[in-house]
């Protein structure tokens, strides 16, 4: 299992992997926003957390379709399916590796982009914390989409379409937790706890469903 984790990590960090592209895409999306809404700093600092969250959501969907498709193309998926270790664990570890390679860099890059959006320290800290808690959920949901679309020749776009509606709760609670932290009256903890609950929930549901879909889509 640890071997699988490090192998996937190596694959995404090496040339052609998703890490750099994900972070670059994240930066580009966030950098485009001021061109769209204008350079008004007050406005930017107000919508900043939401923009960072949307950018992170889109960026973490970016490489997800390759999660199982790359394994299928070179035949590795067959061997992964055949092992004594439960497929559930294999999927879970693959998700964890994918998150560590693509989700974690987004979290680390977010403070820098927060400065661009004229956010204060509290808002940047809260955004980083919610991204840290919320992006794994997106990866776990995305694994279901990736597993469902694994056999499709052009599954990439379909994965995003299937996954985005399911990822909406994560976005809602992530953003509302950040705003709760900035605006005084609303408490920060309830939405944050729900965000973590969603992540834990999908950490169970995602691998179960993805494993089922992979078993059934084998041909």
């Amino acid at each position: 299992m640890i071997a699988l984790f490090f192998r996937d990590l190596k694959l995404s960090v090496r040339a052609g992997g998703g890490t750099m592209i994900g972070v670059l895409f994240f930066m580009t999306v966030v950098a485009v926003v001021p061109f769209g809404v204008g350079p008004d700093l007050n406005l930017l600092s107000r919508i900043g957390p939401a923009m960072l969250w949307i950018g992170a959501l889109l960026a973490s969907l970016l490489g997800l379709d390759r999660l199982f498709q790359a394994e299928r193309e070179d035949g590795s998926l067959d061997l992964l399916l055949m092992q004594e270790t439960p497929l559930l664990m294999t999927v879970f570890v693959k998700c964890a590796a994918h998150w560590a390679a693509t989700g974690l860099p987004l979290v680390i890059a977010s403070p820098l982009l927060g400065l661009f959006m004229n956010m204060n320290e509290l808002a940047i800290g809260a955004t980083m914390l919610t991204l840290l808690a919320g992006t794994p959920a997106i990866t776990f949901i995305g694994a279901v989409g990736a597993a469902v679309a694994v056999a499709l020749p052009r599954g990439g776009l379909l994965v995003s379409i299937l996954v985005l509606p399911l990822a909406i709760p994560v976005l809602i609670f992530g953003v509302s937790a950040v705003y709760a932290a900035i605006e005084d009256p609303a408490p920060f903890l309830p939405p944050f706890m729900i965000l973590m609950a969603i992540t834990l929930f999908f950490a169970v549901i995602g691998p179960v469903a993805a494993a089922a879909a992979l078993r059934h889509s084998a041909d």
Partner: protein
Amino acid sequence: MSENSLAIRKFSDLANPTRFLALADRVLPWFAACTVLFFAAGVWLSFTTEGDYQQGETVRIMYVHVPAAWLSMMCYTVMAISALGTLVWRHPLADVSAKAAAPIGACFTFLALVTGSLWGKPMWGAWWVWDARLTSVFVLFLMYLGLIALNRAMDDPARSARVSAVLVLVGFVNIPIIKFSVEWWNTLHQPASVLRLDGPTIDPEFLWPLLTMAVAFTLLFFTLHIAAMRNEIWRRRVTSLRRQAVRNAGREAQAL
């Protein structure tokens, strides 16, 4: 020996759908007739009862909107049960049912959204507000479209059925989350303008036409669903006959 056992298995495979086709032929006219009757009664009731003193004539939109919204949920439930049937019991008709229900559900959801929008304009002064119900129904609509896209993208019906069944079930788990999360989000941001239609609080003046229309819509759903299932079975038979024709052509070419 092998030829014989194959013939037997093919027959038992078809037995279930065949019985379904016979049943569908028998019940469809009755369902259709009941649907028409209830719709006639419902429309008559809807337009003869008084309008609301506040909302005026626009309240009559409710008689289409509410049943459509209720059916959009029920259709997804039917799909989720069918998905269970596909994955757990491997029932041969379950995936036909799920596949046939998706476009119908999408249509009812679309109808609910459009009528809601038409109703919202005079009531709230806007075609669309991001309130709890609207958003959750919109997400439901997106999920229907995604499922239809997935069904169309896969050519092998057996495989696409099992795979999309997984997705239907995951989506079903997500429905309550979307509903409650958006309500939470709503209380933080804007005052709730949720429509409340608890049965007892509504005036009987509105209740009767509403119930009639709800029954009519439900009957309509079952009529459409059975018809769509029948079409899907026929479509699959045509496909397998075509495959057979290709194989036979190949054999004749070899024999020549």
